[in-house]
């Protein structure tokens, strides 16, 4: 009985979503407050019913209800309960339900945290979010019902969750990732609402910013978790493969970063409005594109869900409708009036615009690199592969350029920056950065141009950020006072930029100074990797909860002193008989030591994979810093000020608009 309740809940949620798409929007266009008042309750109702559906599915998993096809395909009675829980989103239908749950959650959050927004705006934003929900709910109800039953032949047990997914990573990575993907729908909804009602101004930018930043922060965490998970789970120490599905998550991140920065300019200066709106539409479109790529089977990937042409077509239609409708609205309604504002060629506006150029170029690069094989195949020009060599070659220069500009831009001022003043300000940080970079390179040994560029850029960003902080926090009342005086928004930027520098440092060092060896070892052998000696003690056997494992033992030494004891495994899972390589890693802040057992070469000789990974944890640490920066920026006072004005909403938003001698407020 229960699973049908879930299906019913979904259908009810769909009905509410339809109402949400139509009623408040009509109310906002015809000026009828009573219709607009439906927006918040409808959003709440939609969330309740989606939540109910999700709860029903979770219950089915936790109680081993194998009459539900999706549970039977993705679970097993021997699975530990926490994997049964995360198995809910282990396959296509359930992960789609998670997507919809997140969307309903964000919609509700917007409904709750938007008291200060004019009613017209909030009605339209919620309606647009409702429309997106309708699309996805239709998709799940029509093509991907998670509640389909296997009656009357209920299997005795399930097919088991893919062993690769029986991991902590599955518990955290998809939810964080989807929070990000779906969160960009809010910025999208604000953009569409602004295009509909014509109120595209600095106030709109201020409202959109926190939502965009939070979504971006979650996406950063989600991507980092994915990279980390792949690193320790897949058994070969890779952390980014430029795989189409990975790229699909990077695209909205790159575009979202550009959007975040562009919104800053639009909020503060009222300029670049048209561009910012386009970015908001594009970023969410890229989220949708990612959803399509992963589920349609159009591109090959280890991460892809099982493909189904019918689903692919439906999803593409959904995508096409949403994106094309938005872009048509954009083409007709985006402002073309040039704001007459003066800014110097070294002004902060221009630096942020350059940042956008680089980020958007990077987005284009990754998008073209991912989709190009499809294009060639379309014209019957053969099947090619585009992978790491291409992306590393083309992406790295953009990343370096962005970092270098970021450092310089930290010192730039709004409207105008004097070139001489800027150059003088940069001299010391530049010199310090050169010194530190050289020291780092010497300590790791070996100079290569790319290693130097990467390290220098990371050090440069760090130095510039701290230099600027030092400069801004000088105060007659003492340094502490000066530091306290800075806004949370500023510290958010500091953390965010530092995070990027940390990630860049990690990526550069591990790529250039990491060591990978695949060696043949018998028990007693010692292998050398860099400064470390790996002693192979032997292979035993052990029994796990739902698997048996060949259990390797390694002692790692350095300078004769023991460093770690590692136990990589080769597991055979009882259900499905799949074999999995579980690497063992001695993780550290400054280096990882990685061991994985390969094939058995002969009776006592095994192929062993050994890796030395310097600074690899910095990759993910940096992402967390970036996310922390985002959350800090959002907690800034300006977003927590309660409106003291009691005038009607139309004039209150006018008074909140920035007026700094620009005509930005005129829409």
């Amino acid at each position, binding site marked *: 009985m229960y699973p049908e309740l879930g299906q019913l809940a979904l259908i009810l949620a769909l009905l509410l979503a339809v109402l949400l798409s139509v009623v408040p929007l009509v109310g906002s266009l015809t000026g009828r407050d009573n219709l607009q008042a439906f927006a918040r309750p409808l959003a709440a109702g939609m969330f309740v019913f989606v939540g109910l559906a999700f709860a029903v599915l979770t219950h089915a998993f936790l109680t081993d209800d194998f009459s539900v096809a999706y549970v039977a395909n993705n679970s097993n009675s021997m699975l530990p309960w926490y994997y049964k829980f995360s198995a809910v989103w282990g396959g296509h239908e359930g992960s789609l339900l998670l997507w919809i749950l997140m969307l309903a959650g964000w919609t509700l959050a917007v409904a709750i945290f938007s008291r200060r927004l004019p009613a017209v705006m909030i009605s339209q934003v919620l309606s647009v979010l409702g429309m997106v929900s309708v699309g996805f709910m239709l998709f799940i109800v029509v093509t991907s019902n998670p509640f389909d039953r296997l009656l009357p032949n209920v299997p005795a047990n399930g097919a088991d969750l893919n062993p690769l997914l029986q991991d902590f990573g599955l518990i955290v990575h998809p939810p964080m990732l989807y929070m990000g993907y779906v969160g960009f729908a809010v910025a999208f909804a604000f953009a569409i609402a602004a295009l509909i009602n014509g109120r595209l101004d600095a106030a709109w930018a201020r409202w959109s910013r926190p939502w965009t930043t939070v979504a971006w922060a979650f996406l950063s965490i989600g991507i980092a978790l994915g990279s980390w998970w792949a690193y320790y789970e897949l058994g070969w120490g890779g952390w980014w493969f430029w795989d189409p599905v990975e790229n699909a998550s990077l695209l909205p991140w790159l575009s979202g970063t550009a959007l975040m920065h562009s919104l800053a300019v639009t909020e503060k200066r009222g300029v670049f409005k*048209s561009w910012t709106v*386009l970015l908001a*539409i*594009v970023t969410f*479109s890229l989220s949708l594109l990612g959803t*399509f790529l992963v589920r*349609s*089977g*159009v*591109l*090959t990937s280890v991460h892809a869900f099982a493909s189904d*042409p019918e689903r*692919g*077509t439906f999803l*593409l239609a959904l*995508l*096409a409708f949403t*994106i*094309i409708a938005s*872009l*048509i609205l*954009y*083409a007709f309604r*985006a402002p*073309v009036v040039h704001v007459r504002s003066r800014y110097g060629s070294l002004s902060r506006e221009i630096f942020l615009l350059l940042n956008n150029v680089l980020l958007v170029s990077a987005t284009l690069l990754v998008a073209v690199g991912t*989709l190009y094989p*499809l*294009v060639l*195949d*379309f014209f019957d020009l*053969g*099947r090619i592969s585009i992978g790491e060599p291409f992306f590393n070659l083309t992406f790295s220069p953009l990343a370096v350029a962005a970092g270098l500009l970021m450092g310089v831009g930290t010192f730039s001022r709004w409207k105008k920056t004097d070139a001489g003043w800027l150059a003088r300000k940069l001299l010391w940080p530049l010199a310090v950065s050169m010194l530190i970079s050289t020291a780092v390179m010497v300590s790791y040994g070996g100079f290569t141009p790319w290693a130097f560029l990467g390290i220098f850029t990371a050090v440069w960003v760090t130095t510039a950020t701290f230099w600027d902080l030092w400069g801004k926090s000088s105060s007659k009342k003492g340094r502490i006072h000066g530091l306290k005086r800075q806004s949370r928004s500023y510290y958010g930027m500091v953390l965010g930029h530092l995070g990027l520098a940390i990630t860049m440092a990690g990526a550069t060092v591990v790529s250039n100074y990491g060591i990978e060896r695949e060696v043949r070892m018998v028990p007693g052998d010692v292998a050398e990797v860099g400064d470390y000696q790996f002693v192979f003690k032997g292979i035993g056997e052990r029994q796990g909860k739902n698997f048996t494992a060949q259990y390797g033992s390694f002692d790692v030494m350095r300078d004769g002193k023991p460093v770690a004891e590692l136990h990589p495994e080769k597991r055979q899972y009882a259900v499905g008989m799949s074999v999995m390589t579980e690497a063992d890693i001695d993780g550290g802040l400054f280096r990882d030591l990685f061991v994985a057992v390969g094939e058995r070469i002969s009776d006592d000789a095994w192929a062993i994979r050994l890796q030395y990974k310097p600074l690899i944890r910095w990759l993910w640490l940096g992402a967390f810093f970036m996310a922390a920066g985002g959350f800090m920026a959002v907690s800034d006072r300006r977003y927590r000020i309660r409106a003291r004005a009691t005038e009607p909403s139309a004039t209150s938003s006018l008074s909140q608009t920035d007026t700094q001698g620009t005509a930005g407020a005129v829409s």
Partner: protein
Amino acid sequence: MKRFWLFMPLVVAIIVGVVLFAGIGKDPTKLDSALIGKPVPAFSLKDLKNPGSTLDESLFRGEITLLNVWGTWCPSCRDEHEALMWLAREKKVAIIGLNYKDNRDDALVWLDRLGDPYRTVIYDPKGMLGFDLGVYGAPETFVIDASGVVRYRHVGVVNGDVWEQVLLPVINEARGNG
């Protein structure tokens, strides 16, 4: 003029949409052979059924043949065996087998039990000819013309539809030219 540029993202989106739509349903794992238009690579391997006899690339000259790569370890090869028997018997197609990474005894037993559609079977236990032909997963079937040049490679099982729609047109074209 400015308004014109605002339509550009829409145009790009539509183009991408068309390309994506065309990609739905295609199998990204079916690759074209790199040897199309090139002769079968030189090889020197034993005959499966006559261990004393050595075969080489001249085996493919003289008539249009299908080269079928199979192994007893491959379940799909088992599936397509019926179709191959039918092709050999009813359609009088000359099929040469390539026993890929297999055991001679197992292979002979298999042919004995299931029937032998092959004119000759090349015994390639190490998969060397298979590698040179770019075989990456059995079953695969090549169409080779009378001068020993590879015309087409089909990845996956051969059945009636595949014969009708894929292999036969290639054979007819090869016949037309040769």
